[in-house]
């Protein structure tokens, strides 16, 4: 259970499993590594979400906040739920196999 918001977390998403056999992270212990990896995740997501004019912000090592340019915001727990929120915000399905998305990514990387 999240001690900040009281949310009952039923499922650990597969992307959140680490090589550590510890099931809990205590304050200070691995906190920096965990926070760094969350910021890295937010950064990578932003590179992708910028194609949809959305941003993702890491929030207190606990949640992510997904925002659009109109000021709408959604609290996102993990990568298991982010894509549902993204689709709800932009109003159409997203797909990494979508040719136009791949073209945009290629175009931007070649421009850099």
């Amino acid at each position, binding site marked *: 259970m999240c001690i900040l918001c009281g949310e009952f977390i039923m499922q650990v998403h*597969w992307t959140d499993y680490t090589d550590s056999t510890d099931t809990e992270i205590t304050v200070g212990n691995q906190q920096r590594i965990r926070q760094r990896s969350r910021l890295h995740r937010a950064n990578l997501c932003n590179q992708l979400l910028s194609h949809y004019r959305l941003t993702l912000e890491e929030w207190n090592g606990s949640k992510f906040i997904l925002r659009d340019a109109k000021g709408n915001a959604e609290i996102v727990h993990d990568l298991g739920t982010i894509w549902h929120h993204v689709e709800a915000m932009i109003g159409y399905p997203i797909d*990494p*196999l979508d040719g136009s998305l791949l073209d945009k*990514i290629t175009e931007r990387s070649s421009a850099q």
Partner: protein
Amino acid sequence: MKAHGKKAITIVTGCLGSGKTTLLQHILKEPSINNNTAVIVNEYGKIGLDHHLLRQAEERTILLKGGCICCNSRADLEEELKELLYADESGESPFERVVIETTGMADPSPILFTILTNPLLQHRYIVDCVITTVDAKNGMLQLQNNPEIIKQITVADKIILTKTDICSPEEHDAILTHIQSLNPSCVIIPAVYGKVDPFIIQEASNVDRLKVIHSLPSPVTHPNSNVSSISFSFSQPLDWTAFGLWLSMLLHANGEKVMRVKGMLDVGEDGPVVLNGVQHIIHPPQHLKQWPSHNRESYLIFIVRDIDTALIERSLKTFQQFLHTVATTCELTTIY
């Protein structure tokens, strides 16, 4: 598989008459397995024929009510697994492993879904191994007529090729080639009258049996089905966070069509990450302490339905700028 005190589950599936019960009968004759294994039989129809054949396991066999395991009995399976846990903890009938025998028509993925997503079961059980029995004599016919067998083969960690004594060498070779192309990562074990090493129900770590061949890039498409597979190898350690982002997005959009994803990935740690997924369901990835063999090849296999594998290739190669590695399409073969 790392269990962390969880009870292991072996799922035995396969077509009607392909020898699931015969196999289980043989395996449960082994005293060390019989003594600490609970068996859940999913009976199809009203007559519990399979149940009565499994005499060795009679005391702990629980018949699921309501027919097909994937359509109606997900809650039943959950209840049975919880009841078994209660029986274990109360000391009534302790066990270490559960074998779930599905019906011949069952899709194994809802079972995996139930175990991996239920708030209680996911912490108390681990899916150790999925075994599929395939009839060597009639397998090709079943592959043409029963689409569920394709699902059962793609989900399998180990395939028991039964009735090898009554099939011709041509039939044997045909089914073997077909299975290998449908699921390049599975271990294929021939059996006559279900006689196999009983300990095959344990541990699905067959990852080191694969060999990456770089020179033969070939997405494989299967005749008579819209199933195809593609494999990749990676030249450098990949960014696990970026890979998670890509795969979670891919499974969100196309999960139903991704019948299997399996891989052993170098993510820059001491050992690889073993990835195993069926449709939307990804097993908790195992971060191994060390590589299982000298061959430190990083690979990834997709078995997909109704997706052009060239699109997956293009998407992965476009995303590789985030992954910080170079993906190469390759062919995988199993080493015997």
